[in-house]
């Protein structure tokens, strides 16, 4: 049964963002703000960088504001110290990425002015931007969101989103795959990975793929085949999932931008689940000194070791 999700607060949130943006730009607290603005198609939204207080009213927040804007900061991190403090509009999920990036010395908290948005959810990538937000049209990641209200921001509008309990699709899909035999799982992923065209959009959009030279682009030695063929594709996605383990907090941008609809976030959620079970670690809530895979305790599980 389709359930309508209340997005009435988004208008008020937009207003609050606009006035805060106007204030901090005018006061010179920040030099630029990364946010969302309306795009040409009706109801759609796109990222925008504004540098003038006059442009503050361009900022919006709607169910179409799907992008994780954190990626605009990682790729621009060298510029930030020069330009001064930067404001950024963040949903709870985006904030998790920023938190992770701070833990990895990519960003500094004091360089950022965080405008958190109370968010009931955004639209799935397959849905037309002017559609209303419902239990059918909502993005899968929002179904299991645990950060509707971002914590620790410099500014958060006072509205509280109404968030109905929805069926967790990733969790369900992971459970389904886990119940299969290894051969069946292999067949499933083989089919998924065979679709890959190695466009690297997943890498491009990922806030954590901030390496200047990706391991997979190195050819001395050739660790991962670069051809868009099954063997290389499989290796690429396994290596990527491993590199994101303990870091990815599930913004699901990789899955959103994948032109071939490979369920990439499934791999990342699976790893997050395992690390939670093994080491009680969850990415994205606190700025951790060390992630789960670069720390240890002497009593870690070793039941799998002979």
């Amino acid at each position, binding site marked *: 049964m389709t359930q309508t999700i209340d997005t009435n607060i988004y208008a008020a949130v937009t207003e609050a963002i606009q006035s805060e943006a106007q204030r901090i730009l005018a006061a010179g607290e920040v030099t630029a703000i990364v946010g969302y603005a309306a795009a040409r198609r009706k109801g759609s939204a796109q990222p925008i960088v504004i540098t003038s207080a006059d442009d503050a009213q361009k900022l919006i927040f709607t169910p179409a504001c799907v992008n994780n804007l954190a990626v605009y900061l990682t790729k621009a991190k060298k510029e930030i110290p020069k330009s001064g403090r930067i404001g950024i509009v963040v949903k709870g999920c985006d904030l998790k990425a920023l938190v992770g990036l701070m833990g*990895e010395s990519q960003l500094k908290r004091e360089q950022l002015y965080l405008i958190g948005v109370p968010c009931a959810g955004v639209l799935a990538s397959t849905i037309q931007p002017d559609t209303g937000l419902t239990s059918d049209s909502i993005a899968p990641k929002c179904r299991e969101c645990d950060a509707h209200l971002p914590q620790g921001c410099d500014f958060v509008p006072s509205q509280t989103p109404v968030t109905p309990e929805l069926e967790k699709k990733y969790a369900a899909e992971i459970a389904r795959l886990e119940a299969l035999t290894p051969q069946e799982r292999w067949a499933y992923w083989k089919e998924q990975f065979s679709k890959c065209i190695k466009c690297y959009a997943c890498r491009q959009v990922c806030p954590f793929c901030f390496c200047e030279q990706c391991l997979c682009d190195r050819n001395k030695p050739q660790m991962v085949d670069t051809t868009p063929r099954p063997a290389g594709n499989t290796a690429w996605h396994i290596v990527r999932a491993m590199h994101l383990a303990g870091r990815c907090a599930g913004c699901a941008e990789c899955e959103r931008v994948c032109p071939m609809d490979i369920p990439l976030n499934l791999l990342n959620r699976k790893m997050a689940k395992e690390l939670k079970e093994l080491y009680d670690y969850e990415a994205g809530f606190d700025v951790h000194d060390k992630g789960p895979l670069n720390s240890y305790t002497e009593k870690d599980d070793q039941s799998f070791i002979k």
Partner: protein
Amino acid sequence: MSRIGVFVCHCGENISRTVDVERVAAQVGKMPGVAFATDYKYMCSDPGQTLLKKTIQEQKLSHVVVAACSPRMHEKTFRKAVEAAGLNPYLCEMANIREHCSWVHEDKQEATAKAIEIVGMLVERVKKNRVLPTITVPVTKRSLVIGGGIAGIQAALDIADAGHEVVLVERDPSIGGHMAQLSETFPTLDCSQCIMTPKMVDVANHPNITLYSYSEIEQVDGYIGNFQVTIRRKARSVDEDKCTGCGVCMEKCPVKKIPNKFDCNLGMRPAIYVPFPQAVPNTPVIDRDNCIKFKTGKCGLCQKVCGPGAVDYEQEDTLIVEPVGAIVVATGFDLYTIDEKPKGSMIKGYGEFGHGKIPDVIDGMTFERLASASGPTGGKILRPSDGKEPKQIVFIQCIGSRAREKGISYCSKVCCMYTAKHTMLYHHKVHDGQAYVFFMDARTPGKAYDEFWRRSIEEEEAVYIRGMVSRLYQKGNKIVVMGSDIAVGVQVEIEADMVVLATAIQPRTGADSLAQKLGISYDKYNFYSEAHAKLRPVECATAGIYLAGACQGPKDIPDTVSQASAAAAKVMTLFAKDKLEREPIVARVKEAGCVGCFACKKVCAYGAVEEKEIRDRQGNLIKVVAYVNPGVCGGCGTCQATCPSKSVELDGYTDEQIVAMIEAL
């Protein structure tokens, strides 16, 4: 194109019995890049090595693979030979076809096939080997010793006697540490001060030793051979150079009743004081918290009476930087106390013993001061509460030690012995008294130790009761000791005049923060960790830092002195060379690819990874990257496996070398 030479060893018959070595040489000879392949009876023999050297030169070989025994056996041998022939030693690899092949398989065909594959893998690997220059680091032949107890004193004297300069830093106003406080020592009962003070004087007079007392380590930079140590010299308010140690200031000081920590607060001292008469240096220090001059601005008596004008109220803390090549850490221990600990602390106190509020319940060190001829009672055993001689005295062992519940599960190692000593001292001094000891186990391994313990029972008439004490409480002027004798299976109640607790040995407070400054590791109790429990018990994992005494774990005096001399020997070994050579198996950062996530730094157990700023010509910061200090790197390669972009690489085990081996399969 590489010109690889492959030498297949027969090892007498050890290899050739199950591996067809001629066939291996013939097959490998056909591999691309292999210019020469042969087999030989004994490659490690002189003629074998000569063959190797001759062939390198004649055939102009670029790389060498020796297929023989385990590299753990002869890698050094062959690398040396290769070096003698003019090649970089790291261009030689060994293929293990003995331990991993001929000795563990019987089928000749199978073993030969395996040997060919093993050698093939190493051929592919060696192609990717690079010239690695030996890393040399200069050595500053001066040493820092932290802590002026018996461990620090012994280490400092040994190093100084070997002709090297030593900087000795002591936190307290005088060196001597705990040993200076002891009355007599087990198992010979010689007077501690009689054997300790001459050594303290030696330190003071040694031309190679610079003593900084009343000083602390502020900061440690650098690495093995090249440390820069910043030392804070706390304001003593007395000029050490001018002071003659006449002691008039102490006599005239109007504040006299400050409990003296050296006497476990049983004796009193003035506000300007030396902790004990034989102190080294014999220069007083002003206790600013208790000095009238510092509290009210009035008085100034000590300055007036000081002939040489050494008293200086204006003195401030000063920082000095000392360059040293090696560091000996000898910070010693603190005694556990039974008082109530702050909430949430890992260590708990003994509420069942009144949290230390019963005046005649004392610890072992306090008993030492009572028994000491130079102590506050002149060597008489008297109760702190009323100054009476205790006729029934109870000793309880394992207080804090071996008590998980209180947060300490280790054995403090010295308590059994010193309690036995205490019963003897007590019996010698109070002839009509009776000593009882509650104990769980008597641990007396050591030369003449068990005999000593037995003597306390058989000759000195101490009554040992196997069983612990549940509770102590004051009843009138007695202390009721509620214990049990598990041998009999009954409860035992003793109304004692005095109770002496053998409290646990703990690391010094602040041991963890010093460790962090030094970059050495420590266990959950803050004892410093040695590099290897059995084979490297004196070294820290951090190169150039050595441990001596109880800071590493509970120890008695002989063990402490042994370890201190061992640490000194390690320092002298280091100082025997002008430059430090080390295997060039170290990690290197490829700065172009590094994005400064510092995952490598997070996993480095050696603290070898530093942050390095890259700036353009105008001095603008471009990025911050990782830098691996080759002097400090241990060479495990955990950083490389962790680095997402593989921008740090372990020389000798590069991805190229390893992938080449995997691909050779």
